[in-house]
């Protein structure tokens, strides 16, 4: 204390107007960090990405919607009011039944009005007449069609069931009298996993070939680049058509499912491989890689600690953006009858029934599976946009 006081000039000795701080000089001292900045500087890359992503509101909502959808998949049997193949022979092509809350002006539990159908001898169609006198309350948390929960435990518990001795076709029925709403829920299982399996195939191929091209370089790079160019100049759909037509007709529907996803992945990897290659090439030149090299880090450590984490976020973002094209591809193929086949049910398989104008004109509710396709595709696009913006937290 006395030491510092002795070395510092006394304020009185200074000329007026020249201010000198009397506090002792501290070499380690600098601008104090705000608590927020401190948090920002110490955060890991992953945390930064998460914060940035959270700010993108549309992407956040989409992520929640998608997470909810995927979380639902194992419990479809419980959520859907009807079983996948449950036929209601008396209600072929029944139009959607509305869920009502008010009967003759008074509020009730949710209920439906039952259908009575009569056969129209002039048009040879079934005309469904709504019977507005008898409201039938919908049952919740109830016993209905039996199923195997997770494929193991026999159960018959449902979240929602049709009323006692009644029906509840929220989105109508198809030509065999199967409830479209339940079938759309079951279809989600296939349609949503196709994208994931397909992207896994494409991701593995893209990572391998892109990594090879970017890392080895030379003629390998050249060959892979040419192959990518050729594959990218091919119109995807006709090739998908040709490949799926080539799947043996005696394959089981499950094998066909894997065949189709692999086909979708096989033609999708060039885009990813390109991204991997260019990212690798540019990252190799970055200062932090040079620094790690100078500090004597091994090649393995540089790749694992510095390269992969840095381009993974980009890759995941671009993979997210290419999932919708897979889902659409599967939908298109199944729609044309070249993709998945019943009894496997996907949204494309459901839309297959809505292929001709006559069906669409008489039974427009068969077009409902379009809605989940559009929602999922939009959600993946928004989420992918958000991820891509957040992928580079340091810029």
């Amino acid at each position, binding site marked *: 204390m006395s030491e510092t006081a002795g070395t510092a000039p006394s304020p009185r000795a200074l000329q007026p107007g020249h201010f000198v701080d009397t506090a002792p000089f501290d070499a380690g001292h600098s601008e104090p960090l705000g608590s927020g900045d401190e948090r920002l500087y110490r955060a890991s890359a992953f945390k930064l990405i998460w914060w940035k992503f959270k700010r993108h509101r549309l992407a956040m909502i989409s992520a929640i919607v998608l997470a909810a959808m995927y979380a639902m998949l194992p419990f479809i049997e419980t959520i859907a009011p009807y079983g996948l193949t449950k036929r209601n022979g008396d209600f072929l092509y029944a139009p959607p039944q509305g869920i009502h809350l008010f009967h003759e002006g008074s509020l009730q539990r949710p209920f439906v009005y039952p259908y009575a159908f009569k056969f129209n001898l002039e048009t040879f169609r079934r005309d469904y007449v709504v019977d507005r006198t008898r409201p039938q309350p919908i049952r919740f948390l109830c016993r209905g069609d039996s199923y195997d929960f997770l494929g193991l435990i026999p159960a018959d518990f449902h979240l929602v069931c049709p009323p006692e001795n009644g029906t509840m076709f929220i989105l109508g029925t198809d030509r065999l009298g199967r409830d479209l709403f339940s079938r759309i829920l079951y279809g989600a299982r296939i349609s949503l996993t196709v994208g994931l399996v397909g992207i896994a195939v494409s991701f593995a191929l893209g990572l391998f070939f892109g990594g090879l091209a970017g890392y080895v370089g030379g003629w390998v790079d050249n060959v892979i680049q040419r192959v990518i160019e050729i594959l990218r*100049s091919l*119109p995807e759909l006709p090739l998908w*058509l*040709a490949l799926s037509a080539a799947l043996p007709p005696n394959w089981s529907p499950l094998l066909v499912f894997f065949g189709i996803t692999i086909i979708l992945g096989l033609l999708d990897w060039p885009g990813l491989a390109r991204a991997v290659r260019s990212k690798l090439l540019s990252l190799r030149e970055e200062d932090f890689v040079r620094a790690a090299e100078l500090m004597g880090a091994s090649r393995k450590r540089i790749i694992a600690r510095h390269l992969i984490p840095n381009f993974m976020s980009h890759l995941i973002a671009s993979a997210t953006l290419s999932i919708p094209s897979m889902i659409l591809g599967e*939908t*298109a193929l199944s729609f044309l009858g070249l993709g998945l086949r019943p009894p496997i049910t996907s949204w494309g398989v459901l839309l297959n029934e809505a292929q001709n104008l006559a069906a669409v004109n008489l039974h427009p509710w068969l077009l409902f599976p379009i809605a989940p396709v*559009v929602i999922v*595709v939009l959600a993946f696009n928004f989420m992918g946009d958000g991820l891509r913006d957040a992928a580079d937290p340091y810029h």
Partner: protein
Amino acid sequence: MIVYLARRFVTMAVTLLVISALVFFIIKLPPGDFLTNQIAELRAQGEAASAAKAEFLIRQYGLDRPVWEQYLVWIGVWPGPQGFAGLLQGDWGWSFEYDKPVQLVVGDALWLTLLINLATVLFVHAVAIPIAIYSATHQYSLGDYVATLFGYLGLAIPNFLLALVLLFYVNRWFGVSIGGLFDPIYSNDPWTWAKVKSLLQHMIVPTLVIGLAGTAAMIRRMRANLLDELNKQYYVTAKAKGLPPTRALLKYPFRMSLNPFIADIGNLLPNLVSGSVLVSLVLNLPTVGPILLSALKSQDQFLAGFILMFVAVLTVVGMLVSDLLLAWLDPRIRLGGR
């Protein structure tokens, strides 16, 4: 320039060669072929005479030879049963399903496919450029938001589903069928003015449907490009020197933002062609799409192979054109050397 052109043509030829091999082997992947299936069927029905004809066709088209030999015969570099007669010689093979040469089966469909794709490319550019310019110069205005919304919708709604929905509503509201490419009354007529008019009317919906996704993507990209350019100093300088705003916009930033636009034709084309195949199936357009689907299903190998090759040539040539346009538009791109 000549060196560059020659190099591009050589790459194009190699690309097409690889594609042709890929296409042929994919088509040959499923066991058997159209004729062996047919022979089995005819034998089962006890029609030995027809089966003999089919066997004659097998020999005629060399289907009893190994696959690689069949491929070489098909592209025309190996002597087949009729000598050199393959794609290179302009002999497109025989459609077993229609029992006609492929030429006659595809006929008009080729031109209509070309026409639709050309119309779609023009449509995409004609619509996307003005909207993108407006969107970028009036950033965050109402019009910009509408364009952005339209862009997202165009991105998310798969065009064949859009075609399906349009088919439904147009039929319900206006009572007209939008399927087909001209009124059925003209189907066997020679090309007259009335038929052409009918064709043009029917082309509106398919062009719109196929082009929507491409338009949406282009608007988004062009808007982003233009916004980047609008902040650059040369544009500010041009405006500060007193150049009228429209002229300044069109002369500098617009031209700059057009580059990726034309380079994008290469990306756009494969998508458009894919889209047109699907939409043709839904709207029942007489393009190569429906023929391709049925040919693939019945293993009509020469027909399917030819159509796939045609589609590939369409894309590859389109990419070449876009590269040449780009080179012509942007003097900074050096041809030839690296």
